[in-house]
């Protein structure tokens, strides 16, 4: 009998407990009404993050990134290695290679014959930086740039390496650097997108560029890079349809906005206001873009500076000129891609052609920004996605050779916007294979760019699928040595 009493007591308690628990649950549910997004997954005090941007006084306001797609050889541009010329044809010592993985293209080679630069090198400027003879114009502005000879990356093939450089991850679902900056800093000029993309193609062996490289990833679609086309209409679908006047277009937009406003009142969906804003932006771009893409008013000295190709739409020179025009009009991030740098073979002939196409205009951009007083606040970056091997891929002759992909060491340059000028940073061993001094990882590079733009790379985050993401993933150190 005692047992029954006890059991009764216990079950009563259990029932009581559960019923009381339901009271607690009820109040929890009541409390959750205060937190509209608690269970929807979306949340984050994003506004608070955004309100604090930039995190400190920025050195650079805008970036122009001259991406040399396909990976130009550092050994024929900025990393002079006389030893390779001396040891022509000798096998790469295993003590230097140290188990570096190879691409499928050279993994089968039984020998890795060293090969030096086909072109001569000379020292230039006050920095006495070594630059090869195929970059004569870059050599002239050497005291305005900072050459980093100690870049390294994790990827060994084009697509992952490019994606890594642009988005901080090798798989393509993250926002591009320009999108992060658009998200973090917005546009200076509200009549233009904050992130513009310009493409050109050289005559060397090329690799593809894909729109995922300027994707907004999980960020709002307004942060996507806007690709300018090489045709008569640099921004597609921007013109008014035939026989529609600007006033009619204005009226139409007003009516659409009124209707959108009605549905916003009904559903309260912020996507509706975002859409209205995009229509308005496009309307303003209708006057802003032609103002910028018109090159007919550029003075003759500009044609001489960039080279006459700058008037031929779709060339690298024309894109450099357009990049300057976009940038001075307040576009936060202008991204160029120039294809054709993948010299697995025929390097001596192809690389000279490639350099001829980009050298003058790249240097011109620096000079042009400088003479307008804009270089101090504009960061210019020139470089590819990885480097090239110090040994020959395929058949080697004195006149002809090729180089495979090399992620362990390569060169890029940066200029303006808070970067020290006339500097050569980092060093590689005499084989040009490993970094011996001041390595700069891709995430360090990205952290440095964000730093120059006034952003702490660890604090520019976005919560997606339950975790916070950032451009530099979980690493990256600002390369303070190259900052002014």
């Amino acid at each position, binding site marked *: 009998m005692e047992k029954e009493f006890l059991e009764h007591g216990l079950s009563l308690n259990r029932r009581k407990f559960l019923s009381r628990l339901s009271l607690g649950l009820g109040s929890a549910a009541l409390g959750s009404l*205060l937190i509209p997004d608690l269970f929807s997954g979306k949340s984050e005090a994003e506004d608070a993050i955004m309100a604090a941007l930039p995190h400190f006084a920025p050195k650079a306001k805008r970036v122009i990134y001259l991406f040399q797609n396909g990976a130009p050889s550092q050994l024929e541009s900025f990393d002079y290695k006389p030893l390779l010329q001396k040891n022509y044809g000798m096998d790469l010592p295993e003590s230097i290679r140290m188990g570096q993985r190879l691409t499928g293209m050279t993994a089968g080679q039984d020998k890795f014959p060293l090969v030096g630069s086909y072109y001569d090198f000379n020292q230039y400027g006050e920095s006495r930086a070594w630059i090869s003879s195929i970059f004569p114009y870059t050599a002239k502005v050497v005291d305005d740039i900072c050459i980093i000879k100690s870049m390294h990356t994790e990827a060994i093939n084009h697509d992952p390496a490019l994606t890594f450089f642009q988005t901080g991850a090798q798989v393509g679902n993250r926002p591009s650097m320009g999108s992060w900056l658009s998200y973090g800093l917005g546009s200076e000029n509200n009549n233009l997108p904050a992130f513009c993309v310009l493409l050109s193609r050289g005559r060397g062996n090329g690799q593809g560029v894909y729109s995922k490289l300027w994707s907004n990833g999980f960020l709002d679609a307004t942060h996507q890079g806007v690709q300018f086309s090489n045709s008569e209409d640099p921004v597609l679908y921007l013109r008014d349809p035939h026989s529609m006047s600007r006033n009619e277009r204005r009226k139409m937009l007003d009516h659409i906005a009124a209707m959108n406003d009605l549905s916003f009142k009904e559903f309260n969906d912020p996507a509706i206001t975002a859409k209205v804003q995009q229509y308005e932006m496009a309307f303003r771009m209708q006057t802003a873009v032609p103002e910028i893409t018109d090159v007919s008013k550029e003075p003759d000295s500009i044609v001489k500076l960039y080279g006459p190709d700058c008037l031929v739409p779709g060339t690298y020179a024309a894109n450099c000129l357009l990049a300057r025009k976009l940038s001075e009009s*307040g576009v936060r991030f202008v991204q160029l891609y120039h294809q054709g740098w993948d010299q697995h073979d025929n390097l001596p002939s192809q690389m000279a052609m490639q350099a001829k196409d980009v050298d003058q205009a790249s240097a011109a951009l620096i000079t042009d920004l400088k003479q307008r007083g804009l270089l101090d606040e504009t960061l210019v970056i020139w470089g590819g996605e990885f480097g090239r091997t110090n040994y020959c891929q395929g058949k080697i002759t004195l006149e002809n050779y090729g180089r495979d992909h090399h992620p362990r060491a390569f060169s890029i340059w940066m200029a303006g916007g808070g970067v020290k000028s006339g500097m050569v940073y980092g060093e590689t061993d005499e084989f040009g294979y490993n970094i011996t001094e001041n390595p700069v990882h891709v995430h360090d590079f990205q952290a440095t760019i964000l730093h120059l733009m006034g952003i702490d790379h660890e604090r520019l985050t976005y919560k997606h699928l339950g975790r916070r993401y950032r451009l530099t993933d979980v690493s990256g150190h600002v390369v303070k040595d190259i900052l002014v």
Partner: protein
Amino acid sequence: MARSRISPSAILENLLFVWFGFSAILLVGIEIASIPPFLQVLGRAHPLLLHFPIVLVMGGLLFWVLPRSYKSEAYAQIAPFLLLLGANFSGITVIAGLVLSSEGYEGDALFWHQWAGMITFWGGSFFYFFQKRKQNALQIPSILLMLCIVLTGHWGAAITHGEDFLLAPLKTAEPEVTLAEAEVFEHLVRPILQSKCESCHRDGKVKGELRMDIVEGLQKGGKSGPFILAGDLDNSLLIKRINLPLEEEEHMPPKNKTQLTEEEMNILTAWVNSGATFDQKVADLPEEHELFQFASKTFDSKQEYDFDAVSDEKLEELNTFFRKVNPIYPESPALELSYFGIAAFDPKSLSDLQEIRTQLISLNLDKMPLGNASLDFLNEFPNLEKLSLNFAELSQDKLERFPNIKSLKELSLSGIQLSQVALERISGMKNLEKLFLWQTGLSAEQKANLRAQLPNTEIDFGFDGSDVILPLNPPRIKQERILFSESLEMELSHPIPSVEIRYSIDGTEPDSLSSPVYESPITVTSSGKIRAKAFAKGWIGSQEVSSIFMKSGIKPTEYRLLTQPNPRYQGDLEETLFDQIKGENNHTSGEWLGYSEDPFVAELMLKESHSISELAISLLYNESAYIFPPTRVEIIGWKNGKSTIIHSEKPEQSEKIGEIRSELLSYSLKDADFDKIQVKLYPIQSLPPWHPGAGAKGWVFVDEILLN
């Protein structure tokens, strides 16, 4: 039977669960909650409410702490109820506190206060239910709970009054240090040691026999040896230990303690590296010294500008789609302003800037049509440092009365024509640090004078280009097709409108003197090749461009290939030659016949009625793909079984790798009537030495033979 009455205790017990749920949800989501105003009021009542649980819970708990002899019957009855009431008030207070915390409180004190408060609430409630069942051994838990209440209160006070509030009267205040007074050890290094090291290496807790709270201790080192060796990073234990991987047992500070930041490590390293002095003043170091840089960041970041910031509302009002104004960084009162959109510019809007005349330090009016607008108003901007007017449209008389802005450090006037008077105005601005005068129409003499007048100003006259002579890029040839039946129209163009395009269609090389100048579209009626070059004053003539055009002709009655093309490039075999389809400039398109080992030999049968005057062969050249001109072309005519060699010649051979291009070799047949013609093309057998594939066999690619 009397109707059972619900006792107050039962209600309060149930209410406890309500507070549980409510506080739990707030704890999880307070950062993202949107608090309605009435709850905000409750939150702000937190400092009032908190007194109830302190008194009630303490009053209740005291019962279990007291020795047995002090416990009266009445107290025994009231104590549990006091505790229950107190626990309820703790719940309400916790909720109010959580709501209040959303109003921008943060920091360590908040963290500890919040959790101690939660423990008080949970602990008090649990204690209440527990004491109903068990009465003994409750002394220690109740003391712990009381301690928890005290700590909650302490941390709460730290939030409102500051962390050091309680003990502040016992400390002496430290004066603010300026960069000029700062010492390397005292103000850069020591604070790091104090916050990250001294808790274990000080008087009373000398771990590793190392004391870091006194200079002598640092100099002496600990049991593992010398701690600081001036300039010797590799052997100074301080540097060695902080650089060990975190997992190493000897890594300092220990894994579970707060770690040094990157900057702190850099400071310590720079200090040891530069001699580990104890009395060096920062101001005595050279400016580029690493420690100076760190110090200037720490001590000088206070405030660059001492004027007040403009209100956010004002900023919002000044920002339009065509005018961007923002602080130079978030906390700065200094503003920068840019105008965008030439079409939308209204000079009147400049008067709005008066409202931020004190705060504006940078103004950008690039390209804006200022017209007759006066810049005089800028005289009243006391802090304007940077003014950019590149390519702005500004009347000459306004320029000649250019304001002399004393505070201006950087001025950009590129693209504006400056008269001598305007130039003199500018040469009076002695404070300028940077001046940009590209494309301002100044003579060499004027430039030299200006440099002399402004010796401290960095002047950039930019790139002139008039003495640079570059090759022009080639003109473009636009033709709708290559094969035509009657006539074909061709257009030439060049991106630079002022150049002269000269061309030929007779096979001669165009030159700048005798070749015709292109004016309007060219119409051709027979096969041939157009060659064109661009010329302009101050430029080197362009490279030549050329393009072929082919009049489709007579198809022979019968034709065949006597040698077979390479199986990879055999198109439609002999049909390819007369399909009237011009192959694209791509040898793998399937429209080309490729020969490398054997010469190309084709035989064409002709009818008597065919009177052929011309034979043309369409070829592809692409040296980088080893495709070269044939080394020899032979055309042999047959009449009644007798053969005559009509042509046997060596076409011009390539000397470098050129663009991929189509070429047309035309030969006159002198109207002789043959009944059979043989065409032979010999591919190059050994590529020239300059070619990457020197010595290898080259190729010939043919796609069409035209008879007219």
